[in-house]
């Protein structure tokens, strides 16, 4: 009681030192107002960095604005930029390349990531060490990964060609992973998967570890086989996590730029020219700001729409 009285009087002393005009204003604030006050900086930042640029880009997409010629009058061109983009064969080619890359890399990363998660989840000896080793590629900077994979894939000096040549009994210099039209797209998928499979593995591992043991024990009591347990328990319960990993990786893969730029610059020819490479060239080399804003909005709408449909499906799976 005495302690409480001491605490109250201490609070009173501090309150008494609050300037009168401030204390009058503070007394009038509701809890809701205080809550808004606390999140106001975050909301302001969100509006300034995300919402305003989006609205500005939408505005610019209807103009002929070029940011290297900022002094020229800006002309409203209506839907001309959108029409140019949607009728440009090179743009469609880039979108196809991007779609193939996204689908291939997701499929590979999910297969490998889930497999690794199942393996790690068995809890073999030194699994902690191996988990750390597997996570290392994810911790590297994409610039570093791009540069050293370029060296690794060199036909004359790179170990990759040497190993493949040894296994398949072909000359290491007889093929070029980043210089061949057929192999280059798969090389990008390979490098991206090397870097981001650990990410999928982590999410799947979290899902696997969230499955209560008693479910498996009950299944064993019912003499369910390993395959039955995997199909009826593991997969359905891990599916939401798997779908989340697919969503995150798909969004990242769709906007992937740095690895492709370093490995192939979109080549050979335009074989690996992803939409992000085209966008960068239009926006920051040709300075066609209005045109590239329209392209960015089209990409945004595509990703947003696809993500929305996918999230609805994810929610349905979670509710099951």
């Amino acid at each position: 009681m005495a302690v409480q009285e001491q605490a109250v009087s201490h609070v009173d002393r501090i309150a008494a030192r609050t300037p009168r005009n401030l204390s009058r204003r503070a007394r009038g604030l509701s809890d809701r107002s205080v809550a808004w006050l606390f999140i106001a900086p975050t909301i302001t930042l969100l509006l300034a960095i995300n919402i305003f640029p989006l609205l500005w880009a939408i505005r610019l997409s209807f103009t002929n604005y070029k940011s290297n010629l900022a002094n020229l009058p800006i002309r409203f061109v209506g839907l001309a930029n959108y029409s140019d983009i949607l009728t440009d064969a090179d743009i469609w080619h880039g979108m196809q390349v991007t779609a193939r890359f996204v689908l291939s890399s997701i499929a590979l990363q999910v297969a490998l990531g889930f497999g690794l998660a199942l393996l790690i989840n068995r809890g073999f000896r030194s699994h902690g060490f191996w988990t750390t080793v597997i996570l290392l590629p994810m911790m590297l900077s994409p610039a570093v990964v791009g540069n050293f994979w370029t060296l690794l894939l060199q036909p004359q000096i790179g170990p990759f060609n040497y190993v493949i040549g040894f296994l398949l009994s072909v000359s290491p210099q007889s093929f070029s992973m980043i210089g061949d039209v057929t192999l280059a797209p798969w090389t990008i998928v390979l490098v991206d998967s090397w870097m981001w499979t650990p990410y999928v593995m982590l999410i799947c591992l979290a899902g696997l570890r969230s499955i209560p043991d008693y479910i498996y024990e009950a299944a064993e009591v019912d003499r369910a086989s390993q395959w039955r347990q995997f199909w009826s328990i593991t997969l359905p319960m891990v599916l939401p996590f798997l779908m989340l990993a697919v969503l995150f990786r798909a969004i990242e893969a769709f906007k992937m730029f740095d690895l492709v730029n370093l490995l192939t610059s979109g080549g050979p020819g335009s074989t690996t020219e992803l939409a992000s490479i085209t966008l960068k060239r239009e926006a920051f080399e040709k300075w066609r700001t209005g045109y590239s804003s329209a392209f960015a909005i089209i990409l945004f709408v595509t990703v947003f729409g696809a993500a929305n449909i996918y999230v609805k499906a994810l929610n349905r799976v979670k509710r099951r």
Partner: protein
Amino acid sequence: MNWHKKLLVAAFAPTLALLAGTGSAQAEDKSLTLCWAAWDPANALVELGKDFTKQTGIQMKYEFVPWTSYADRFINELNSHSKLCDLIIGDSQWIGGSAENGHYIKLNDFFDKEKISMNDFMEATVVGYSEWPKNTPNYWALPAMADAVGWTYRRDWFAKPELRAEFKQKYGRELEPPKTWDELLEVAKFFTGKEIDGKKVYGSYIYTERGSEGITMGVTNALYPYGFQYDDPKHPYHMDEFVNSPGAVKGLEVYKELYKCCQPPGLTNAYMQEGLDAFKSGQVAMQMNWFAFFPGLYKDPNVGGDKIGFFINPAGPAGQFSQLGGQGISVVAYSDKKDDALKYIKWFAQPAVQQKWWELGGYSAAKSVVQAPGFPASQPFAPAFLQTMGFVKDFWAEPLYVDLLLDMQKRVHDYVVADQGTAQQALDMLVKDWKKVFADEGKNTE
């Protein structure tokens, strides 16, 4: 003063004192910032710049950026009206855009006042690095670094008796640096696959870089000698039958043939540094590269000295031409130190400074240097350089040159490296791309 205010004063007072001190210190030290690409000639310029500082007391600071980011970085600085650069050694292709967008100051009045005559510099460098519009007396830069594409070869390999005998038997002539593109193909194919010094070697290295300007800067050395022209000399911007002429198609096919037969594997996206690495590591018998790198190659302990030789870009049926490189030095319009920057330009234009520039490893464009009697003997690559500067051609220097360059990068790389379509199709599509660019600029292409 309550303790809050005392704390604030204690926190900010040192900062304010530092800022005041810095400001006054800056007012006392004069300095200029020069922006360029990070390569050997830039190091030579730093050395040369010490003389300027000794004479004027103006400290020289430098902002050097690797070639891979050079255009992106500095065009960005210019577009954003940055005050970072007082002087800039910008690429020759930037001259049109920089002049029309007000990034550089016009130097005519300054040249007249200081009696700096453009007749004192090689014509090709004045047209290529200084003038906009081209072939008009409107100067936006002083020619600073003369450059063009040339070739190096392994003189020691060419001198091997067994190889000379084999070559003579096969082709009926001596194994010498090629004078025509047909000879270049023969020599390159001859060396490809041979084992020399215990290693398999390849005939030639040519540019194939996709991202910036590499393959364009390489392929033009084959296109020009076969008759490629950017437009009709009588009707500017009329490109049909000039860009995609039968000769141009043949030139493009020859470049692809050289790439397919004789380029070391893996060099499908290779520009300057990869060429130097391929040559220095003994992978190739001949290398295409800018003259700017030849001083360093000559000094290389493994392939320099007696082992290296230099030759000019081979001729074709339509004549002998080489791709112009090089840069001019300009005063940035947004600089607050234009007067000091002009002092640098005046100092750099002096014949004695130009001579020292050449001696340190830069490539002077001054006639007083290149036409001096002793110039051909001054360096082993000097004769080839002098000859080449007499037949250089440059890419478009229009304000929209980037659009034109990226279009050519795509079409040429698609055909040469990615095996898409034919040479005729590639050049036909290039004409279509370029017409669209010029139409956006309001130029008549018919």
